């Protein structure tokens, strides 16, 4: 049945591909030059990408409209899969016990193994479920009901065995994947070291080729390894000496290390704030002999492997957070409907209603973003969606945190006690902005990737402008004039060839305005800062935020348009949510982009930096105590 599904999917994708091709031909005349430049830059990934083009003020609507779908058989299949998993999580998983005892009981783990949840994305020929990204996202929604289990499973398959899956050779896959898929072996991802987080240069763990040339001897220690205590197979990154152009150089290499190789010791489990049931500890390697054939990819190519693994694992956080919030909405609305104050139920108070609306909107947006991204990733040709995935991660981790804390607030004091699960959700949720790349560093990634892309294309234009080329300046002025006469920006989302449903037209217009302005802003930032924009983190943060908002708007517009068009149940509610979110995001974006303008009074970056500098110089709060006197 599955193979049939795949065929259907493939044919559908081919259609989409054709559509894209036609679209690009249409655009080709208009911007042949820029396309040529783009092609040379993006030689390694697919030609079209949605998020990057936003930096140029363009909408690649074929990429995100219509909202990606899966076939009927697949829907059936996923429903069949979801039902037992949901039952298992509702009936057999005692989250409060896992949290209290800081351990997932073996019978729970066995249940997960039986459900096949240890090999969701491993192809069927290696004994896994062989599900697509979309289906993985759907399962993540349920798995996230228990943070500890979600993290354990994610560490196992989203990063732990991903290296073998995407960069391993056939022999490695044959050898390791079946046991990993069944859950007989558990995987871990060992990258972080005491002196190194995202800085690959400070990795100290070293792999030295033995004299017979058959083994690498790995020595060093890794910290904060999820599943570190129970993992049998580990993806370990270590420094190796590589000859580059005749010069010896240290480069990172990825290895598959079995605990059975000997010399692997794990430290005491860390006592954490949340996700207490997941195992996190230090793992040390003392001259662990690793056969040469266990190198993932090639020697010295570990950096790429690590980056690809990290980039591919992030998209599922959107659906996980959404799943959690949906559950919280159900729980808290029950309470709000029954609890009475002043002879009114809690649900009649405006401030409580606001919280529910916030949760609903957030869940809706996260869901939309997650499944849009997953759908894009499932398209043939290995599309590079790391930028989109990073945006999903940032948005959903922060939204999740806000929603969980608002849910607790609805309960008030009750929520603060251990009698209710809310405090656990708050604690568990706090990890989301931290792991899989902190949100700060991901924002840098989002903004800089786009800046690099836009910069490549705009360099020539900006240089002309700087030189004061009359022609360029006049064409700029002409464009500006034309824009002022035109009432609103039209990027083709609505109207004749429109892809957005008319009931969402207004929101689409707002998004178009945002995108157009983003293009101008990026251009002016490039003009002003050039490559030194790397050091302007506060600006980059805003650029990233605008982009995240725009992507979120895209996702909800696309999803809601589809829902209306095919007549999904309660699609009017979706329209309501989408319009509300878009209005809100529109204002936020406008504010952020005003701040990005030069000499904008809203922009107080200089003050912020100064405050931070003075505080950091003193390494303390600087002000005198208000009770102090001078005479």
């Amino acid at each position, binding site marked *: 049945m599955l193979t049939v599904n795949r065929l259907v999917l493939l044919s559908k994708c081919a259609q989409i591909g054709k559509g894209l091709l036609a679209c690009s031909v249409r655009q080709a005349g208009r911007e042949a030059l820029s396309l040529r430049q783009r092609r040379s830059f993006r030689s390694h990934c697919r030609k079209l990408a949605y998020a990057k083009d936003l930096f140029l003020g363009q909408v690649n609507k074929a990429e995100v409209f219509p909202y990606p779908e899966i076939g009927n058989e697949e829907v059936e299949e996923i429903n069949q899969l979801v039902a037992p998993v949901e039952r298992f999580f509702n009936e057999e998983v005692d989250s409060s016990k896992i949290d209290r005892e800081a351990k997932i009981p073996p019978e729970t783990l066995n249940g997960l193994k039986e459900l096949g949840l240890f090999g969701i994305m491993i192809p069927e020929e290696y004994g896994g479920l062989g599900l697509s990204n979309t289906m993985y996202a759907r399962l993540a929604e349920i798995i996230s009901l228990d943070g500890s289990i979600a993290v354990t499973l994610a560490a196992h398959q989203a990063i732990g065995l991903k290296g073998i899956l995407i960069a391993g050779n056939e022999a490695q896959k044959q050898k390791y994947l079946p046991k990993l898929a069944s859950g007989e072996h558990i995987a871990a991802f060992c990258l972080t070291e005491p002196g190194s987080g995202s*800085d690959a240069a400070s990795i100290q763990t070293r792999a030295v080729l033995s004299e017979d040339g058959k083994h690498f001897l790995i020595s060093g220690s890794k910290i904060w390894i999820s599943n570190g205590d129970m993992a049998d197979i580990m993806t370990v990154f270590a420094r190796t000496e590589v000859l580059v152009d005749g010069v010896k150089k240290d480069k990172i290499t990825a290895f598959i290390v079995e605990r059975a190789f000997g010399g692997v010791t794990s430290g005491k489990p860390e006592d954490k704030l949340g996700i207490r049931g997941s195992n996190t500890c230090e793992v040390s390697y003392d001259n662990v002999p690793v056969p040469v054939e266990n190198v993932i990819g090639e020697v010295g190519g570990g950096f790429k492997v690590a980056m690809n693994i990290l980039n591919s694992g992030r998209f599922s956080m959107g659906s996980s957070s959404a799943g959690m919030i949906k559950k919280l909405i159900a729980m808290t609305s029950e309470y709000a409907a029954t609890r009475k104050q002043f002879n009114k139920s809690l649900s009649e108070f405006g401030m409580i209603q606001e919280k529910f609306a916030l949760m609903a909107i957030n869940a809706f947006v996260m869901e939309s973003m997650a499944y849009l991204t997953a759908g894009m990733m499932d398209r043939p040709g290995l599309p590079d969606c790391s930028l989109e995935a990073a945006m999903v991660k940032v948005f959903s981790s922060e939204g999740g945190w806000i929603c969980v804390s608002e849910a607790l607030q609805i309960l008030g004091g009750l929520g603060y006690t251990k009698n209710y699960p809310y405090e656990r959700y708050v604690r568990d949720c706090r990890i989301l902005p931290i792991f899989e790349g902190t949100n700060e560093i991901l924002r840098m990634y989002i903004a800089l990737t786009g800046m690099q892309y836009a910069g490549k294309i705009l360099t020539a234009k900006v240089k002309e402008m700087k030189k004061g080329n009359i022609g360029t300046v006049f064409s700029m002025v002409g464009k500006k004039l034309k824009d002022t006469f035109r009432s609103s920006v039209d990027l083709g989302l609505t109207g004749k060839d429109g892809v957005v449903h008319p009931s969402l037209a207004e929101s689409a217009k707002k998004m178009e305005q945002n995108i157009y302005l983003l293009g101008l802003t990026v251009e002016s930032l490039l003009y002003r800062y050039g490559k030194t924009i790397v050091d302007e983190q506060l600006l980059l943060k805003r650029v990233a935020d605008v982009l995240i908002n725009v992507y979120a708007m895209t996702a909800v517009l696309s999803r809601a348009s589809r829902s209306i068009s095919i007549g999904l149940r309660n699609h009017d509610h979706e329209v309501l949510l989408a319009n509300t979110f878009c209005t809100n995001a529109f204002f936020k974006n406008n504010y952020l982009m005003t701040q990005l303008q030069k000499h904008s009074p809203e922009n107080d970056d200089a003050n912020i930096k100064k405050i931070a500098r003075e505080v950091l110089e003193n390494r303390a709060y600087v002000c005198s105590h208000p009770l102090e006197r001078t005479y």
Partner: protein
Amino acid sequence: MKCARCLLQLQRLRPAGQSARSAAQYGALPQSPYASHMLHNTQLQVLRRFHGSPARVKNRPVPAEFINEDDKKRDKSLVAHDDLFERVDKESRTKATFNKVVDVFIKADVRRRGHVEFIYAALKKMPEFGVEKDLVVYNKLLDVFPKEVFVPRNFIQRMFNHYPRQQECGVQLLEQMETYGILPNVETKVLLVQIFGEKSHPMRKYQRLMYWFPRFKHTNPFPIPQQLPEDPVDLARFSLTRIANDLDAAVTVYQLPCTDITESGELLTLPHIVGIQGPSQMELLAKHNPSRPVFVEGPFPLWLRKTCVHYYVLRADPLPPEEKVEEPYDPERCLVYPLQLDLDLDRDFGDEESFDVEDLDEGPVFAMCMTSQGDQATLNQWISGLQQNNPILGQVPTLFRLNAGPKELQGVGDTESEHHRKPEQETQREERQPEEEPEVLEEERPRRSHGMKQ
């Protein structure tokens, strides 16, 4: 702010001219800069006389008579009041005796005749009794003024300068407080109101003091405590932290001061050696090219209020431009985002926020130390102490470039010989194996300090 800066500048400028003049006037002067400061202030007082109209004095015979009387007695009484203070033994000049003198004066005459002269004399003598910074004493001096006599009672008195000499004396007292940085308190205010009334000149002076003093109290971002630590080690610790201004820097006491008697019966005094070094300095030193020498230089003075301490630095010459290597950009450094953009665009001039400062490369300072005995042997001990945490010092040639410090005045010949020896030292050292460095220094040590055995 600008005004404040002007004031500061003025104050800096004044002592030069003023002290010269006062030196001429007063002959022998105490050496401290504060003394001259005070003197010039008293002079200023004389210059800033209030304008009392002599015509008015005629209209009011009674006070005039007083003043005339005073005038007649002035010379005599001045001597008398000075005498009161002079009578106290030089040794027993303390706050208690000062208070006693004031009490004697107060009790001597109910009318407090000659109190203005007495107060002037007392103000002059305050530093000798060591009470120039004591607010209680100033209040007590103010208390010498008879109360309510000088308070103007009608608008004419209020309009004109009422009892100018007394008011001036009050202002002078406040001004001396200002000089020593003493902030008046409520008691002062109550006294001033009782003596001169609400809107008198001393009251104005008081208000101005109260306006400016609190505002200027914390202008120095690097305050020095009133009482410096007595212990030389503590003092060194304090001053080194102050110079380094690095919260990470660690102070190490390499040697505590102690006196010992050797077997031969010689008195052996070991100087204190206190050093400071931060982690960034250690990092710099570790990267230092061992073929280039490092220098121990000093002593350099550091003034803390009235105390002068000396410190030594371990430094190197700035790297010549050809040796500077910039770390190449490694694209495989950051796992998440590109650390550099591959763009051919630079920052626009309009957004260039850095100033064009002429950068003078001074070369790195690796460590600093303070010691009571700045000879090469002692400093060598410091360097070998540093070597424990900075093993590279064993390979780097260390050159001593010491000036004759204030404490080495007696050893002029010594320092000269040291200067002669220097080139020879360098050649010696470069010939030897780097590991032998400390031994080489050991050999040289006896030449300089015969009595010392370590």
